């Protein structure tokens, strides 16, 4: 699974992307457990950031697959 980090989440991870080893589909909370194990500084972002898969926001209950591209989207502030 390719994980993309933006804005504050990129700062916390210290990089823009990361390949997360995932063997089976995972829930959103399982994703956060895996990703914060690698990047503990992302832990506070779990409360505020949303996830997107394939450039669409993840809907409640949807799973994330091993081949998905998942973006960590902190609260937006464009315009």
């Amino acid at each position, binding site marked *: 699974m390719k994980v993309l980090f*933006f804005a504050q989440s990129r700062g916390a991870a210290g990089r823009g992307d990361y390949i997360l080893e995932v063997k089976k589909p995972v829930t959103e909370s399982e994703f956060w457990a895996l990703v914060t194990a690698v990047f503990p500084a992302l832990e506070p972002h779990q409360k505020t950031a949303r996830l*997107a898969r394939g450039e669409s926001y993840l809907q409640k209950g949807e799973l994330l697959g091993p081949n998905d591209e998942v*973006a960590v*989207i902190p609260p*937006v*502030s*464009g*315009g």
Partner: protein
Amino acid sequence: MEISIELTGQLIARPQKWAAPFDPETGSLVEFYGIVRETEGAAKIPALRYEAYASMAEKVMREKIALLEKKHPCQAIRVVHRLGTVPRGESAIYVGIQSRHRQAGFLFLQEFMDELKKDVPIWKCA
């Protein structure tokens, strides 16, 4: 509805020029420029820096426009959002909306900006 979306590192000139001729049914052009203020929160700033998840930002904007078009039919929309460093006094965003009558354009613009600030993955960093 004609849709033009641009994310750019270049200055957003004021006033903006539309390349294509206006739709013959256009009777109103509503425009908005979002400008970088001197203060962000309590701090005085020389500039803001914007970044985006560009491909998703454009996709989400198109989805928002498709929904709003059903509520407020318009002829055309042009969105330009600047990325990178934007000095104070310069525009971070331009939105122009052509409609038959002004009310649809005003409503479309207001709701589009609300949706953009809620869901479009663009961030400002002081």
